[in-house]
C-alpha cells in the first residue's frame, strides 16, 4: 500500500511518498498514484527523501510522470540519498529532470 503526504508550500504542491524502494515491482503503481494526486498544470515538488533504492523501472516512472505535466505545470525532485541521486547523473536524466538534494534548494 503506497502512502503519500501532500501539502502546499508557497507556489508548490509538495508530494512526499512514504516509500523506500521504487523498482519493477511497484514503479507503475507509484507513477499512477502520483498522477492521480497531481493536476497537470500544478507546480510540484516530489520529495523522494525516503527512497534509498531506485532502478531503471523507477527512473522510467519518473520520466513518465514528467510527461504528465502540461503547460504551466512543472515537477522538481528532492533526492537526498547520494547513491540514488548519482543514478540520475549516470543515466543523464539529471539533464531532463530537475533533481535537488534538499527541498529548500528545490523550492529556490
Amino acid at each position, binding site marked *: 500500500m503506497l502512502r503519500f503526504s501532500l501539502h502546499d508550500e508557497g507556489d508548490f504542491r509538495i508530494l512526499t511518498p512514504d516509500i523506500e*524502494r521504487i*523498482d*519493477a*515491482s*511497484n514503479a507503475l503503481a507509484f507513477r499512477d498514484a502520483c498522477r492521480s494526486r497531481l493536476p497537470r498544470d500544478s507546480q510540484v515538488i516530489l520529495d523522494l527523501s525516503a527512497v*534509498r*533504492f531506485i*532502478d*531503471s*523501472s523507477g*527512473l*522510467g516512472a519518473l*520520466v513518465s510522470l514528467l510527461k504528465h505535466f502540461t503547460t504551466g505545470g512543472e515537477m522538481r525532485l528532492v533526492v537526498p540519498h*547520494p*547513491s540514488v541521486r548519482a*543514478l540520475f547523473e*549516470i*543515466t*543523464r*536524466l539529471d*539533464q*531532463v529532470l530537475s533533481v535537488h538534494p534538499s527541498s529548500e534548494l528545490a523550492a529556490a
Partner: protein
Amino acid sequence: MSAPVSSAFAPQLSNVAAFGRWLNGTLASSYPDSDARFGLELAAVELFTNIVRHGRPRSAIRVVVRCAAQVAEIELIDDAAPCNMARLDGDLPADALSPAGRGIFLVRRMTDSFKYRRTMDGNTHTLSKRLA
C-alpha cells in the same frame, strides 16, 4: 571466502523487491558500507528484472552469492531460452528519455565484471564487484 548463500525466487516482477531486499541483507553481513553495496544490488535487480521480462523462465530463478574479503560475486541461474547477446551489449541511447537499454547499461556500469554462460538447462549470469 565465506560459504555461498543461495535462494530462489519465482520469476515474477512482484518479487523484484523481495529479491533486492534479500540480496542487500545477504551482502550487508560481509560489506557493511551501504553505498558500496548499492551498485551491486542495483545491477542484480536489473538483471533479475530483465530475466523475468525477456527470458520468461518457467521455474524459479536461483541466486548464489559468494563473498570474499573484497569481492562479491552473484550468480543468477534460470531455465529460460538463450539470451540474445545483442541485448546484453550497448550503451545508453542518445535520447536520455528513452528507456531502451537503460537496465543493461546499469548492469555493466555498476559491476566490475558481467558474464553470461549458456548451459544445457538454461542461463547463468555472473556479476562481480569489489566492495571493500
